[in-house]
């Protein structure tokens, strides 16, 4: 039997706009409208909007909600209070990454987790297994839609006040109530708007009226890769650890959480391989799974619209991970020169 694909509340609007729809993590999602490069450039120069309603949302609450999340998530929730958010990892007992997510502290003892669509079930099962009396985990994904509005003019176009990254507040756009989260996945300023599913169409229309360019998952991937933001399933997985992935900054190794001991050991002895960002020095496009000579592998690769070069991320032996190191990537049988660069691969000059 063919797999039934889920549809977001904005599905019909994407089709009406002429989007090319593709299956992604069990959903039928727009990969592009006009074209990946033009959508990518709109986000770098002005403002784009992405339907990311396929992402999962969990609410965790109860007198021991903090205790549950402190023991399962890598970052330290004591660093944030109500109104603040944090990038964090859900880790397994080997220190592997079950998912990366953003946790929003709604109230002292109530949290919202926004997780990757592909991991929604795995995350929920994992959290439920770890659940303790006094904490309640609920999957509320179907109640909400999520729009990412990103770009240097995103906040201005939406008529929102400036605010610090990784904060959030109740808000409204032209009368449509939503939660305005100062987060994103493009390396640009902007926000993510969490809205009740039934209001998603109205919000999408208002955001387009304010001049945001509709953008698909194609541009979302090229943007996040230029920004050196890892993609779960590609660059980080249950079989890769946070230290090797360069994500030690979001692991509070002084607290106890699942896999913390393994991560401390990896940190102490130094990882064997490290996730690096690289830029091709010849005309070629690296792709996931290509070998990097000397014992490495490309985990994400694309053509950068801003640099007009092949770019990517991949694991290399730790002694090849320093920015400036030359790499050789096997692109369908041809050895292509690349160079390790500092993250992010691309940053707009202010």
């Amino acid at each position, binding site marked *: 039997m063919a797999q039934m694909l889920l549809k977001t509340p904005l599905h019909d609007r994407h089709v009406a706009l002429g989007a*090319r729809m593709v299956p992604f993590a069990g959903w039928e999602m727009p*990969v*592009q409208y006009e*074209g*990946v*490069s033009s959508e990518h450039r709109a986000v770098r120069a002005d403002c784009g909007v992405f339907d990311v309603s396929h992402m999962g949302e969990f609410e965790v609450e109860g007198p021991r909600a903090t205790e549950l999340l402190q023991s399962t998530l890598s970052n330290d929730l004591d660093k944030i209070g109500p109104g603040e958010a944090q990038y964090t990892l859900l880790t397994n007992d080997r220190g592997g990454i079950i998912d990366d997510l953003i946790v929003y502290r709604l109230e002292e003892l109530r949290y919202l987790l926004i997780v990757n669509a592909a991991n929604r079930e795995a995350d929920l099962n994992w959290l439920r297994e770890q659940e303790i009396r006094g904490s309640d985990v609920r999957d509320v994904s179907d109640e909400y839609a999520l729009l990412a509005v990103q770009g240097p003019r995103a906040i201005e176009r939406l008529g929102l006040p400036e605010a610090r990254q990784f904060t959030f507040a109740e808000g409204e756009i032209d009368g449509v109530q939503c939660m305005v989260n100062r987060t994103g996945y493009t390396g640009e300023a902007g926000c993510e708007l969490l809205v009740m599913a039934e209001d998603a169409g109205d919000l999408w229309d208002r955001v387009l009226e304010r001049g945001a360019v509709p953008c698909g998952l*194609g541009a979302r991937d*090229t943007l996040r890769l230029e920004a050196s933001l890892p993609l779960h399933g590609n660059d980080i997985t249950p079989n890769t650890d946070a230290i090797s992935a360069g994500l030690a900054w979001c692991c509070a190794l002084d607290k106890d959480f699942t896999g913390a001991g393994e991560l401390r050991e990896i940190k102490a002895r130094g990882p064997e391989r490290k996730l690096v960002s690289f830029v091709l020095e010849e*005309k*070629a*496009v690296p*792709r996931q799974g290509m070998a990097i000579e000397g014992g490495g592998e490309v985990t994400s690769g*694309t*053509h950068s619209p801003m640099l007009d070069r*092949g770019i990517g991320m991949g694991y290399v032996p730790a002694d090849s991970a320093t920015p400036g190191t030359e790499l050789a990537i096997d692109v*369908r049988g041809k050895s292509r020169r690349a160079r390790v660069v500092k993250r992010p691969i691309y940053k707009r000059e202010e």
Partner: protein
Amino acid sequence: MAASETYPDDLKYHKEHDWARIEGDEAVLGITWFAQDALGELVHYEPPNEGDTIAKDSAYGEVESVKAVSDVIAPLSGEVLEVNAKVVEEPETVNDDPYGEGWLIRIRLSDSSETDSLLDVDAYKQVVAES
């Protein structure tokens, strides 16, 4: 700006979505509107070398978009006389003008009788309709 869907009637076509413009004992080759549309904006063109011999129905190069890479299939056999340097530098030229500025290579035919096996525009449109 992407071109709109067209299939010129002065070209010969191959079912793998390639076209050939026969000019005496030479031919100019490229990919059709359908092929570039399916791939999306091209970001890389890996051409053969001038002087290489290419064989009908075999891959002679690669075109790559943001999302996918595809072999380019030779509709005819011959020797590569010229590679379109503009497409090497600006692969999106193929999206803008697949039958004009976006040509890929020029070859000298090694067997001009092969042209009889190619599709005319109506037959190729039928292939597109069934794709």
